[in-house]
C-alpha cells in the first residue's frame, strides 16, 4: 500500500497544479480549497511553500474522532471516507493534528487526501512521491 509524501517541497514553485488536479479529478471541482493537498506559503511567497496534506497516520485520530465510522482506517495509513455514513459533524477536521482536513462549508463533508497519487504527475518539480509504506510498519500491524 502506498501513501503520498511531499519530500521535496523546497523545490515547490507555488503553481498549485497539484491542488487543482486533486480538485478536478477527485472532487470534480475547480477549486484551491476543495483538494486533499493544499499549498500554502508560510508568511508570504518569499518564505517558500508548504504542503498541507494527510500524513497517513495509523492509527488516524480523525477516524477515532468520527462517531459514525464514516472515516475508517486505511491499510498503510490514512483513512477511507464513506459519504453515506457521514452526519456532517466536522469532528474529523477538529481532530486532525496537522490541519489536513478541509471541512467543506457547502458539502459539510471532509475533503482530504485519499492517497490515490493523481496529483503526483502534475507537479512540474517532482516535489511529491507515492511511497510504499515501510515493511516494519506493516509487520508491526
Amino acid at each position, binding site marked *: 500500500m502506498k501513501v503520498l509524501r511531499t519530500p521535496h517541497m523546497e523545490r515547490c*514553485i*507555488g*503553481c*498549485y*497544479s497539484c491542488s*487543482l488536479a486533486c*480538485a*478536478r*479529478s477527485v472532487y*470534480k*471541482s*475547480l*477549486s*484551491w*480549497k*476543495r483538494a486533499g493537498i*493544499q*499549498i*500554502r*506559503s508560510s*508568511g*508570504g*511567497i*518569499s518564505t517558500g511553500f508548504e504542503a498541507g496534506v494527510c500524513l497517513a497516520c495509523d492509527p488516524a485520530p480523525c477516524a477515532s474522532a468520527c462517531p459514525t465510522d464514516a472515516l475508517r482506517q486505511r491499510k498503510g495509513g490514512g483513512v477511507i471516507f464513506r459519504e453515506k455514513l457521514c452526519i456532517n459533524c466536522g469532528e474529523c477536521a477538529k481532530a486532525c493534528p496537522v490541519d489536513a482536513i478541509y471541512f*467543506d462549508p*457547502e458539502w459539510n463533508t471532509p475533503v482530504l487526501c485519499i492517497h490515490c497519487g493523481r496529483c503526483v504527475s*502534475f507537479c*512540474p*518539480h517532482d516535489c511529491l512521491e507515492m511511497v510504499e509504506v515501510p515493511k516494519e510498519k506493516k509487520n508491526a500491524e
Partner: protein
Amino acid sequence: MQNRFKVMVVDLSRGKSTVEYFDTRNAWLGGSGLSAGLFSHYALMDEDPFHPDQPLILAIGPLTGYFPLMSKTVLGFMSPYNSQYAESHAGGRSALALKFAGYDALVLKGRARKLTCVGLGSKEVHIQDVHFLKGMNIFKTGKKMRTMKPRNPGHRSILRIGPAGENLVRYSCINVDTYRHFGRMGGGTVMGIKNLKGIILSGDSHMELDPDLRKEYTKVYDEIYTQVVQSGTMRKYHDLGTPENLIPLNELHALPWRNLQSTHDPGVEAISGETFARDLLLRQVACAGCPVGCVHIGLLRERFGKEHEFLYRQVSYDYEPIFAVGSMLGVASGPGVLTLLEDVEKLGLDAISAGVALAWATEALEKGLITKEQTLAPLEFGDVQAYREGLRNIAEQPNEFYKTLAMGTMVAAEKFGGEDFACVLGQEMAGYATGENYYVSQALGLRHSHLDTGAYSFDQEKDSKDTVEAINFMQDQEDYRVLMCSMVGCLFARKVYPKNNLLKALNSVGYEFNENELDAVVKKIKSHRWALKFRTGFKPEEVKIPSRYLEVQTWKGKADPDYMNRLKKEYAKVLREMAENWQKEMEANNESS
C-alpha cells in the same frame, strides 16, 4: 453557467458594495473585453482620471483557473499618465483568487475618506481603515496586510501600492503578491487617488465541474498540460527566464544603453541572464495555475557591519527591469541592478518608466539643461548610489524638478528641454531598439506596451519597408492578443494556445463558439478598446517619436525617417477608422434599440 458576468462594485466614498450582473459573457468574453465593457459602463468619459468616481477594474476570463497559464488579471482604468483608457496585466495569485472569490470582475469606484484596504472573499467584503500604513513601503505593507481580512493564508492575493502611488507619481505600479505587478500606465496612481492602499482577494469558494462536460474538459486539460510541461516551448521561461534576451539583443545592437545613446556594450555580460542565473538566482516561483515558474528571484547579500554582519534581500528580476535600471542607466552590475530594483519595488514605481526617466535626467544633466541643484543627486550613468537617491526623489518629489519628472519623462522634457532624447513612445520605452516597426507600434499601441503587437519580432524577422505588410502583422498580432488577453492567458503561452486550442478549451467548459463567431467577438472587443482610447483623447497623428530613435544605430543601420513616418501615418489612419466605424455602429445600434 450564469450567462451574465458577476461583478462586485465597491463604492469607497459610501463604504458600501453591490453585486451587479453585467451584460453577457458571449459579448465580452472576459479580461480585456470585459474590462472595456465595464469601463464604458462605469467611466465618466468627460471627467479627468483624478475624478474619484472613475472606476478601477480588475477582470478575469472564461478560462481563468480552468487551464494552465490562464493566470492573468486585466486592470482597466483611465490612466493618470495620459488621461486615456488603459490596460495593465498581472499574474501572481490575483486571477485565481478573484475566480475562487466567485467574481468575474471587481470594480472600485469613489474615494475613501481615510487610507483604506478592501478585502473580498466569496462571502465577505471588508472596507478596512489602514491609515497606519501611510507611507509604508511595499514589503512592509504586504506583511501587515497578511493579518487583515479575509484571512485565508496561501489562497489569497495581496495587492498594494507604495509611497509612489500614495504621492501620485503618474507611473506608480500596483504590486501583486510581492513579485508581480500591474506595472504600466499608473494603475498604482489610481489607487492613490482613491486612497486605496491595498486589496486582498480571497479564493475561498469552489465551482463544481459540469458532469456533462467533465470528461471532455479533463481530456483537453491533460493535452494542454502535457504540451506545457513536455514540449519544451516553455522551458526558456523557467530556465534563464526573459533575461536570456539581453545578450542576443545586445549582439543585434538593439539593447538600449545609457538613455539609448548606444545599442551595444561589452558590459552586457555582467547583467546577462546567464550571469544572473549563475551568480544571483535564488529560485523561481510561479503564478497560481502555471507550472512554468518564470518568476526569477535573485539573492542580494549585503554586508551592513564591520564584523561579519549580513542581511539578504530577495529581488525579482526580468528582462525589462534589467534593461530599465541596468543598461539604460549604464549600470553593468548584477548586484547593482538588484539593489535598484529592490528600491523600485519598495517605492512602488513602474520599473521601466522610473529607469527611463532617470536615464533622460542623467543626459539632461550631462548636457547642462538641468542642474545638480535640481536633481539633488549627482546622477551619472553607472552610479548606483546616485540612482537610489533619484528613485527616492521621484517617489517623494521634494522639489519642482521631481514633481515634474513624476508626471512623466516627456512632461519633464517639455519643461526643461531635451525632448529629442526623451525615450518616450506613448510612455517610457520598453527595452527594444529594434527599428521603425517597434517604435511606431509602441508609440501608437493601445497599452503603449511591447506586448501590444510584438512588433520587435517583426523588426527582427523582416527587412522590408512595406507599410501594408507591417500593419497587417500588427493587426493580426493584436487580434490574437486581444483574444488571449480576454481568456485571460499569459502571453508567454502563445505557442501552447494557438486559436484552435483556445477554441477547444472554451468549448470544453461550455462556450459554444465556432471560429467565425469567436473572430467576430474579438473584432468587436478590439474595435471597442480603440474607440475607448480615442474617446478619452488619443490623437495618434499628434504622437511624436523623438529624434533619438532616428540617430541610434541598430544592426540595420539608422532608422529610415521616411518609412517610419509613412508607417505611423498609415497605422494611425487604420486605428482611427476602426475606432470611428465602431463608434458609428454602436450609435446606430443604440438608435435602433
